């Protein structure tokens, strides 16, 4: 699936001409903001995309999924990156009309730890008990039950989490509310009511830093950051009862076992499948279906096509998982739904 940038460009142009839009995006700038989870992908994708589309400038600002959705709703950006879809009330307030969701990647959320065991296996109820501080020692019977035969130390558990509101926290707590719903009491959200004897770090990197420097620490961290910090991570028990290591392949496997709605929204959390990694997050690029500026719309379509098609091969290199084939096909097809409409047509 590795293609040269020439081919990538040819494909993008082909896609556009076939949909009847002549490519005429001289000096177009596209602005996006939102998900920090997908920022590394946006960065490498923008760099590659520029090679074939020298006249298109793309800026991706990050700032968090919530900010991205708000910016798009207020029409201050051309596209938003978000790890969760708009809520219905939120979507109704979007000033530019109907929205289109383009899934761009899947990402395993690793449960990293710093304690003297090489292999650690965890099930959802055990993770829930650890993170809400029902379990405070590493040699607790619940952890021992997940790790038969392992020698667990009598060390205090230190729980670390994100200080700021975060899509990763949202997906991690959604996983616990789904897979351990009888045990988990803190519900799900971008910020939850963590017990006050836990530690908070700024960003994935800040949390990783706490785990690295604190004996007995455990935390949820995006796989790419966990790997960058050289942390050990646990294998997690999935719905099929198998303990799965967080890898790009296991996240793609989770993508195979999900139910996708017509608007391409879904949740990859606790997916079916023998090889699926259960704590898998997803992220979308969200745009308005109706665009007012033709040149901008063409550039946007070319970039969207690149993100869901040729750009996908860049993902494993930065520890993210590409979309499964069926989902990818749907996303490529959906690019055609981005239409240019005159101002008058925009009134709903």
């Amino acid at each position, binding site marked *: 699936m590795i293609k040269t940038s020439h081919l990538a460009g040819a494909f993008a142009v082909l896609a556009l001409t076939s949909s009847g839009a002549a490519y005429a995006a001289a000096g177009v700038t596209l602005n996006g903001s939102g998900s920090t989870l997908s920022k590394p992908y946006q960065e490498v994708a923008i760099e590659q995309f520029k090679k074939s589309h020298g006249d298109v400038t793309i800026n991706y600002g990050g*700032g*968090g*999924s*919530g*900010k991205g959705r708000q910016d798009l709703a207020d029409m201050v950006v051309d596209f938003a990156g978000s790890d969760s879809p708009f*809520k219905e*009330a*939120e979507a109704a307030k979007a000033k530019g009309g109907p929205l289109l969701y383009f899934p761009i990647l899947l990402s395993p959320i690793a449960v990293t730890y710093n304690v003297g065991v090489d292999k650690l296996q965890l099930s959802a109820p055990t993770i829930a008990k650890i993170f809400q501080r029902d379990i405070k020692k590493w040699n607790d019977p619940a952890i021992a039950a997940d790790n038969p035969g392992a020698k667990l130390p009598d060390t205090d558990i230190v729980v670390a989490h994100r*200080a*700021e*509101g*975060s*899509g990763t926290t*949202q997906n991690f*707590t959604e996983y616990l509310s789904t897979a351990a719903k009888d045990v988990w009491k*803190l*519900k*799900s*959200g*971008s*910020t*939850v*009511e*963590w017990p*006050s*004897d*836990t*530690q*908070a770090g*700024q960003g994935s990197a800040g949390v990783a830093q706490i785990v690295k*420097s604190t004996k007995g620490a455990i935390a949820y961290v995006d796989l790419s950051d966990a790997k960058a910090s050289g942390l050990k991570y646990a294998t997690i028990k999935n719905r099929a009862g198998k303990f799965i290591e967080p890898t790009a392949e296991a996240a793609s496997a989770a993508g195979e076992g999900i139910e996708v709605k017509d608007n391409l929204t879904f949740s990859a959390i606790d997916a079916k499948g023998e090889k699926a990694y259960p704590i898998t997050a997803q992220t979308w690029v969200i745009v308005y279906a109706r665009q007012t500026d033709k040149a901008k719309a063409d550039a946007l379509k070319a970039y969207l096509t690149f993100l869901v098609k040729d750009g996908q091969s860049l993902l494993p290199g930065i520890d993210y998982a590409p979309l499964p084939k069926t989902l990818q096909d749907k996303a490529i097809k959906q690019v055609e739904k981005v239409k240019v409409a005159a101002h008058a047509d925009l009134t709903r």
Partner: protein
Amino acid sequence: MNDLFAKRSYGDRAFSRATACAAALVLLILALIAITITRRSVPVFQEMGLRFFTTSRWSPPDGIFGALPFIFGTAFTAVIAVVLAVPISLGVALFLTQVAPPRLAKPLVYLIDLLAGVPSVVFGLWGVLVLSQHFHLGRSFLTAGVILAIMIIPIITSLSREVIDTTPPGDKEGALAMGATRWEMISAAVLPHSKGGLVGAVMLGLGRAMGETIAAALVIGSALGQITLNPFAPGNSMPAVIANEWGEAQELHKSALIALAVTLFAITIIVNLIATAIVQHSTKRSRGT
């Protein structure tokens, strides 16, 4: 002659109007800020009522928003900062004005004023790297208090120095002429004269410490619902919560964060009013009226 006078008075009028406009604009901006944030904080008060100020739980998924721990954290860290900063600042200010020879005092004054201009994120990062990691203070009320103290020392020092400098030389020379030692002179002439201004300086430092966002957010620990007098515990302050949670907040959560801003706004105004009152009271007393 007349012409020239008319021209000048026209210019004067234009000038006084322009300055009045500038002054009015500041008030207008302040009023607009107050109105907008108050209006947008209404939903959380409809939901929580005054329990917003008394509840110690903050759980966005449950829709429960209690500001008490953050009000406490803001006050606690600001008090730690002031307690640490005031003796040092006053010491430095007295040293610069009463003890140090001018050729030493001048560069020092320059250096301290420079310190006041260092962006707060630099202090915050230094706090994370040096205080919490190198000195193992962790992220706590104390770490935040220490960073805030370092940040307000230049401000309090600078203002105190200027206030102390206004002590009439006659008062000081009188005290010395009556055989007072340097410390007796300071406590009998300099401090009584400067008391009002010094309180004002401390209050301004307190205001800065309460409103400081980034440095506090980086080192305070971001623990929710923490109310304890243990300075080594992680906590949270109002500005830090706003900075941390704004990006991903929705609807009621957003409104709750804005309500925190309103609370902070109100507390800052109250602190400043108290400072003004104290300053006026003490200047009155020192004039003997």
